[in-house]
C-alpha cells in the first residue's frame, strides 16, 4: 500500500500516476457537472430566459470560481482516499458483528469522518451555487419582541443543506464498506478507457440519483426527530437567533416543502455523482492492462520482468496486473509467448517458463489446500475420522461429503459421542457446524461464534438430549475443543498453512482439572444464556455463503493463472520448439485435476452453490460474490483446453491411475 514505507517501484511509477490521471480527469469533468447543477438547481419553468441569464452570470462570478476551487480540492481528496483505501481482494464479513467491526475500525472511522467533512464542503458549494434562500448561514431579521432593531438569525435552509451533505457523505462511506465499494474488480472484456467510461456513465447517473433519493429520505426522517440539536448548537455557538416568525423546518409542514426536498436531492445527487465519477475513473485507470516485459535486455530492468513480478507477494495490485497480462499474452500475442518458451542464452534453461509455471502452480496448490482444509473443518463430522492428510481424505470424498452435509442440515449430536475416539478426532479436525468462516472474520475469538449458537437457531434442537445433559462429561470435554478448533482453524485459514499441519493430535488429550471443568461449565452456561438473546444471535449468526465467498475472495488471480497456463500449454503444442512445457505437463495436469476435485467437493457443501442475489443499482462491485462460479467454469475449460489440444497424446504422460481416470472423463467429454 501507499502508506507502507518501502513503496514498490510499481506503485510509485504506475499506480500513483494512474490515480493522478484519473483524479485529473475527474477534476476536468467537474466543470460541466457543476454547470449542470447550476441549471438544475436554479431552473424555473416559467422564466426560462431569466434562468439562463442568471446561470451565466453566476458561473462567471467570483463565488462560483471559489466554490469550484473548493470542489476541486474535495475531488483531489476523494481521489487520494480512493488510492489509499482500494483493494483488489475484498474483505468479506461473515457475520453481522464482523461487519460492525469493519465499520468501527479506526481506519474506517477516519475515512467516514473525512467523507463527512467533504460532504459539508460540497453542500456548502451547492448552497452557494443554488443561491436564493440557501446562500448564507445567518440573515438579519427583526427582533422578536417587536423592537425595530434587527439581529442575526439562523438560516435553517442553509443549515439543513449542510447537514444533508454531512449525512450523505457519511452514508456514502458506510455503504462503501457494506457494498465493498473499495474493491476493484477486473473486467473479463478489455475495452479502451474512454469506451468503458462511456459505458459506465448511465449506471453512475442512475445509481447516484437513486442513492441520493434514499439518503435524503433517511436524512429527512433523522432531521425531523433530531433536527433541533444541531439547530440549537449552531444558535448557541454562533450567537444566532431563531426567527420565530419563520416556520421551523423540523416539522411536518416544513419538510413537506417540495422545492426544499428537490434542492436537497439535487445537491445530494451532485455530491454522489462527482464522487462516483472519481471512483469509476480510478477503477478504470487502475485496472487498465499493463504490459510487463517477458524478458529484459538490461539487468537494471530485470525486476520489472513478468517472471520476477509474478513471484512478488506485495503489492497485490502488481501481482494481479501481472497475472492479467500473463493471461492476455498467452491468449493473444504469439511473439511474447515465444519469449516465454525461449531458453536462456548461456545455459539453455527455460527460466521464464519455469518461473511462470512454478508461481501459477503454487497459487493453484495453495487454493487446493485451502479448499481441502475448509472442507475438512466443515464436512467431517468426527465419526472416527482418522487424522489423515488432505490427499487421503480426497479419496474418500463422496461419502464424507454427503454425510457431512446431512449433519449440517439436521445435527444429531448424540450420534457423535458414541466413541471417545470420535470425540478426539472431532475436536482436532473441527466442529461440524462452524464453517471455516472463522479465520476470515474478526470475531474468531469470540465465544459466540460457536456451534452452540447455530444449534439454537433450529428450534428442534431445543429438545435434543444435548441440552438436557449439560453436565455430562462428554459435554464438558467438548468445551475446550471448541476453543482449540477456533484457534486451530485460525492457523488453518492462513494461506501458508498446509492441511497436514492442522491436525495435531498431541495438543488435544488434555485432562481437564476440576477448576477448568467448572469454568468451562460456566462458560457454556453464559454462552447458552447469551445465545438466547435475539439481538446477539442476529449479530453473531453466520451469513450463509459468506464463508464460501471469503474462501474464493482472491480467485481472480487463480482464474488468470489457470487461463495463462492453459493457453500457454495449448500454444506449446505448435509453438514450443524446445519442449520446455512438456516437462511440466504432468504436474500442471495433476495440479488442475486435484483442484478440480477440491472445487467439486466444495460445491457440494450447502450454500456453496447457491447463487447470490444480484444487486443492481449499486456502485459496489458484486463480482466477488460470483468468483467461485467463475473459477469453477474456468478450471473446467482450462482442463478441456489442454485435453482437446493434446488429445490422445496425453496417454503418454505419466500420472496416477486416479488422475488418468479423471482425465479420461475429460477426453470423452463426460465432465
Amino acid at each position, binding site marked *: 500500500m501507499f502508506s507502507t514505507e518501502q513503496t514498490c517501484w510499481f506503485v510509485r511509477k504506475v499506480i500513483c500516476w494512474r490515480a493522478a490521471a484519473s483524479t485529473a480527469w475527474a477534476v476536468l469533468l467537474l466543470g460541466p457537472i457543476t454547470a449542470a447543477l447550476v441549471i438544475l438547481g436554479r431552473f424555473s419553468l416559467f422564466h426560462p430566459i431569466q434562468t439562463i441569464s442568471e446561470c451565466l452570470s453566476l458561473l462567471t462570478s467570483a463565488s462560483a470560481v471559489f466554490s469550484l476551487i473548493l470542489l476541486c480540492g474535495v475531488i483531489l481528496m476523494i481521489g487520494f482516499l480512493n488510492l489509499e483505501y482500494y483493494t483488489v481482494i475484498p474483505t468479506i464479513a461473515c457475520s453481522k458483528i464482523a461487519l460492525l467491526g469493519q465499520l468501527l475500525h479506526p481506519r474506517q472511522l477516519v475515512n467516514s469522518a473525512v467523507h463527512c467533512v467533504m460532504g459539508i464542503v460540497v453542500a456548502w458549494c451547492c448552497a452557494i451555487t443554488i443561491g436564493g434562500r440557501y446562500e448564507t448561514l445567518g440573515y438579519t431579521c427583526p427582533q422578536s419582541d417587536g423592537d425595530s432593531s434587527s439581529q442575526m438569525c439562523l438560516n435553517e435552509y442553509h443549515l439543513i443543506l449542510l447537514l444533508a451533505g454531512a449525512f450523505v457523505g457519511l452514508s456514502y462511506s458506510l455503504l462503501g464498506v457494506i457494498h465493498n465499494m473499495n474493491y476493484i474488480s477486473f473486467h*473479463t472484456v478489455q475495452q479502451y478507457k474512454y*469506451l468503458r467510461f462511456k*459505458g459506465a456513465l448511465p449506471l453512475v447517473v442512475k445509481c447516484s440519483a437513486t442513492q441520493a433519493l434514499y439518503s435524503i429520505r433517511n436524512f429527512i426522517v433523522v432531521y425531523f426527530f433530531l433536527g433541533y440539536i444541531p439547530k440549537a448548537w449552531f444558535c448557541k455557538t454562533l450567537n444566532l437567533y431563531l426567527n420565530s416568525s419563520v416556520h421551523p423546518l423540523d416539522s411536518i409542514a416544513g419538510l413537506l416543502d417540495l422545492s426544499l426536498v428537490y434542492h436537497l436531492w439535487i445537491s445530494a445527487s451532485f455530491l454522489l455523482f462527482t464522487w462516483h465519477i472519481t471512483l469509476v475513473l480510478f477503477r478504470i485507470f487502475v485496472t487498465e492492462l499493463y504490459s510487463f516485459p517477458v524478458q529484459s535486455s538490461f539487468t537494471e530492468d530485470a525486476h520489472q520482468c513478468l517472471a520476477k513480478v509474478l513471484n512478488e507477494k506485495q503489492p497485490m495490485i502488481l501481482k494481479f496486473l501481472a497475472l492479467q497480462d500473463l493471461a492476455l499474452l498467452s491468449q*493473444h500475442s504469439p511473439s511474447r509467448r515465444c519469449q516465454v518458451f525461449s531458453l536462456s542464452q548461456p545455459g539453455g534453461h527455460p527460466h521464464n517458463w519455469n518461473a511462470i509455471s512454478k508461481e501459477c502452480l503454487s497459487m493453484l496448490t495453495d487454493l487446493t489446500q485451502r479448499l481441502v482444509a475448509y472442507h475438512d473443518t466443515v464436512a467431517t463430522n468426527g465419526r472416527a475420522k482418522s487424522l489423515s492428510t488432505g490427499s487421503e481424505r480426497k479419496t474418500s470424498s463422496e461419502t464424507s461429503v454427503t454425510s457431512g452435509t446431512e449433519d449440517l442440515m439436521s445435527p444429531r449430536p448424540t450420534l457423535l459421542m458414541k466413541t471417545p475416539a470420535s470425540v478426539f478426532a472431532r475436536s482436532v479436525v473441527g466442529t461440524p457446524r462452524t464453517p471455516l468462516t472463522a479465520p476470515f472474520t474478526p470475531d474468531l475469538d469470540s465465544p459466540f461464534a460457536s456451534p452452540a449458537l447455530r444449534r439454537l437457531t433450529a428450534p428442534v434442537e431445543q429438545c435434543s438430549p444435548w441440552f438436557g445433559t449439560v453436565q455430562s462429561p462428554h459435554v464438558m470435554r467438548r468445551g475446550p475443543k471448541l476453543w482449540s478448533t477456533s484457534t486451530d482453524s485460525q492457523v488453518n485459514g492462513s494461506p501458508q498453512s498446509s492441511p497436514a499441519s492442522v491436525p495435531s493430535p498431541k495438543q488435544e488429550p488434555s485432562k481437564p482439572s476440576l477448576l477448568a471443568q467448572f469454568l468451562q461449565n460456566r462458560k457454556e452456561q453464559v454462552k447458552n444464556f447469551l445465545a438466547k438473546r435475539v439481538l446477539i444471535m442476529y449479530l453473531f449468526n453466520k451469513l450463509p455463503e459468506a464463508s464460501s465467498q471469503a474462501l474464493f475472495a482472491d480467485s481472480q488471480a487463480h482464474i488468470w493463472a489457470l487461463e495463462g497456463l492453459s493457453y500457454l500449454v495449448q500454444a506449446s503444442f505448435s509453438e514450443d520448439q524446445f519442449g520446455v512445457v512438456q516437462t511440466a505437463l504432468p504436474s500442471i495436469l495433476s495440479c488442475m485435476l486435484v483442484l478440480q476435485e477440491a472445487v467439486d467437493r466444495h460445491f457440494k457443501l450447502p450454500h456453496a452453490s447457491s447463487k447470490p442475489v444480484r444487486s443492481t443499482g449499486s456502485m459496489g462491485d458484486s463480482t466477488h460474490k460470483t468468483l467461485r*462460479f467463475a473459477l469453477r*467454469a474456468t478450471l473446467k475449460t482450462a482442463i478441456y483446453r489442454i485435453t482437446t489440444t493434446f488429445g490422445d497424446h496425453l496417454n503418454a504422460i505419466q500420472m496416477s491411475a486416479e488422475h488418468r481416470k479423471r482425465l479420461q472423463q475429460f477426453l470423452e*467429454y463426460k465432465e
Partner: protein
Amino acid sequence: MCSLALFPPPLPSGQTTLCESNNELLSGTTTEDQLKQESSPLSLYFPRESLKLHSRTESSSKAAFLDHSETLWMRSAAAWRDGGLTGLLNEITTSHTEVPKWLSMSSGCILALLQKVSSFHGSLFPHLTLSSEDMIAEFSQVLNWSDCVVRAFAWHPHTDKFAVALLDDSIKIYNPKSATTPTLKHRLQRSVAAVQWKPLCASALAVACQNCLLVWHVDPCSLSTRPSSGCAQVLSHPGHSPVTSIAWSPSGSLLVSASPMDTAMMVWDVASESCVPLQRVGGGGVSFLSWSPDGSHVLASTPSALFRVWETRMWTCERWPCVKGRCQSGCWSPDGSRLLFTVQGEMVIYALTFTDTPAGVPTSTSQGPQAAAVVADLSETTFNTPDGDIIVGGEIQSLAWDSTGERLAVLLKGDPHAADRPAIIAVFKTRTSPIFELLPCGFVQGERGAEPRLMQFHPSFQHGALLTVCWSSGRITHVPFYFLSAGVPHCGLSGSPSLPRPQTVPADFANQSLFTELMS
C-alpha cells in the same frame, strides 16, 4: 458471372442426395433412403402431429375471465405493472369519467406524443413495430421459422452430440453413445431462435429465447430424461429481448447475444452472470452474430443496411455499410481470416479478408480490407429436368462453412408460392490457401415435398464434412461429404471408400473454378 450455371442439374423429384464420394454427389431413391434412415441412429423424424403445441397465446387468457370492476387506483397499479408508462397513461385516458378532466386530457396528450415519437422511431427502423415472434422469424437463420418443426439445431463442437429445439418449445439432446435423450423444458424457454453448445465444455448449452437467454447445464453422465429447471441459468437484461442470435467465443469464456430491439450487443460472463453491453449508435439493433473460429473477430449485423465486425481484443469495431439491404447471414473461414456474407435483396456472396497485424504489436484493430469482393453470383438459373424446368437461385437465407474450410453450403430461399422455384441447398467446394477458390459441387435435395429449413456442418467430422439438414417435414438428415482434407495429414483413409478417380468425373465443369483470387 453466373455461378449456378456450372452446377450439375438438380435431381429428379423422388431422389435424395445421399453423400459425396469420389468427388461427386451420390443420390438414391426415397425408399432406399428410408432404409438408410432407419439404420442411422442420428437421423430423426419429428412429425408435426406428434408435438403438443400451445393452443393459446399468452394474451388471450384475459378474455376468459369476467370483467371485474376495481377502483381506479387498483387498475392504475395493474396497468403500470403490466404495461408500464404507456399502460398507465392509457388506463387514465380511457377512464375519463372517474379522473379529473385535466388529468385525463394531459395523459391523453402525453400518450399521443409518445405514440408520435415511437412511430417516428418505427419509421426509421421498421422492424421495431414487429411483434417479437415475427421479429424472430424475420431475423432467424432458419427459413420460415414460424412454421418450422425444428426451430434450432446445434452440434456439440467436440463430440457426436446435438441439441434440437422443436416447435413445442422443448429441446431434446441426442447422443449416440447414451440411451437417454434429455428433454429440456423451462418456463421461460419460449420461441427458441438459436441454440449453441459451449466450446471446451461438455455440458453447457446456450438457448436464445423470447425474453431471455438460458444456459442449460446438462450433465452428460446423468440418466435423467427431464433435467429440472434448476439446471438452467437465466441471463436477462432489461430491453434485451427477443434474443435472435447468440455466439460463444471459441475459447469458451464469453457468450455474446443480440436482439434486434437492443442497440447494444451483450457480452456475457456466463459463470458470474454479468454482462457488458457494447453499444454503438446506428443500425437500430443487432440481428445476427457470428464469432470467427480463431476467436479474433465477431460479425454483428444490424436490421438496417449496416453491419459491424468487432475485434475481440479491445472490442472495437469496424462499420460496414451495405448498399442494398441488411446483412442476412455470414460465415468465417476456419482460420478466421476470411468472412463470407450475404446481403438481403442481393443474390451474391461477398467476401472480406482480414489480415492480422504483425504478431505481437499491441495495436488496436487489425487492418481490415477496404471493400468486399463478390465471390459468387447466385442469380436465378433454369435447369431442364425430366420433371420440367426448375429455377434455382435467388436470395440467400444462410451460409455454412465446414470446419476444414473445404465445403460451403448455401441455403437458397426460393419462392414458397411457385412450385418450380424450390428452396434448395447449393454446395460449393472451397479452398482457402494459398488462394481462395470456389468450385461447384452440387445441390442437396431431400425427399419429395420437403424443403430445407436449417443446415449445419458437424464441427469435428473425421472423414471430410458432414452436413446436417432439417427439413420442413420434420426430418433431420445427415449428408456426408467424403474427401481428404488438404489441411489434415493423410494418414487415416478409412473414410473415403477409394481414392478419387479423376477420369470418372461426369462432366468437366466440376473442375471449373467459379472464383479465384487470381481473377480479381
